[in-house]
């Protein structure tokens, strides 16, 4: 995930801020010492790292503008839209962010299906 560095820094702050609510992992706790932590401490530690917040994945930026991309107006509409819009260039054969993944749920990858189908594909 491209935001890992930012997420790690932010979550360190959250861990400090929420220390009064939740007893966080002991200072300096490392995976090697994980077995000495309680289940809840392990879970909280994970929620501050690899199970942290998700973003829009590959579609976190607005699409490229120009030939083979979108036009300026469509790009602005991606920003303003009340529904997730992205990957407008899928007609060029690029991965469709809204396509259903193949296989049963157990086979699905993390991160999950991004945003659901955009309105124009629900028709």
């Amino acid at each position: 995930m491209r935001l890992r560095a930012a997420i790690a820094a932010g979550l360190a702050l959250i861990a400090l801020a929420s220390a009064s609510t939740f007893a966080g992992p002991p200072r300096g706790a490392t995976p090697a010492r994980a077995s000495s932590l309680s289940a809840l401490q392990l879970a909280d530690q994970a929620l501050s790292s690899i199970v942290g917040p998700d973003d829009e994945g590959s579609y976190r930026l607005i699409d490229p503008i120009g030939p083979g991309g979108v036009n300026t107006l469509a790009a602005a509409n991606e920003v303003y839209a009340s529904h997730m819009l992205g990957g407008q260039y899928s007609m060029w054969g690029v991965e469709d962010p809204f396509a259903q993944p193949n296989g049963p749920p157990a086979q699905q990858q993390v991160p999950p299906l991004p945003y659901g189908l955009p309105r124009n594909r629900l028709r």
Partner: protein
Amino acid sequence: MKNWTRALLVAVLLMGCTAAASADSFFEQLQADALIGTGIDQYHRANYREALGTFDQAMRLAPFDVEARYDRGLVLYALGEYKDAASEFAQCLKQQSDFVPALFNLGVTDIALGDLVSARTIFMRIVADHPSSVRANFDLGLSHYLDGQPDQAAKDFAVAALLHPQYVQAHYDRALAEYRTGNLVAANMEANAALKLNAGYAKAYFLLGAIDLRQGNSGSARSMFQQAQRLASDPVLKSLCTQIIQQIGA
């Protein structure tokens, strides 16, 4: 008469030069547009280094082409060169202050750089003008969450999820933010909403397990962590689930 002829000749020469210059500029722009098209294609195919070279060429031909600069910013972001990407998006805004896609992408890049105050300012500005922008509300939530303000983040994610109820990440991130504020009921509800949209969302099961642990429901917690373990594709997450299940069982 002589003066007239001279003046006419000078005028014709000047017009010729201007026409030649504008023809040059026209063909350079045409060439730059072709390069931008190639660069975008390379970007779509994730050939980011090649794309960067192509956009560099385009910008040598058309240094003030704001779209080429914007696309170059996208490529730099994809390469993890966030400072340079931010600088390109900022330059786009200097050239064209109402270039909203560049403003939005600058906010996303600021998050990657850890400049959460700047990111928040950008997304708040977009939300102020366009309150129903699902992306701006979502990224405002991320900025708040990463800046240690889960209560505010929960509100932002709630708006994003309300605007686009199928937006799985908005539900999950709201659940996480609610968990951080101690609102376990809301966290539980949102994690379940995320699972309704994607039954294979391992992280949502993991969060439900943590909520159960906090509520003292170790049996249910165990089952949630087992689900997360089964669904997780990340070996680190799988291993963590195994450790937690062992701890619960002990």
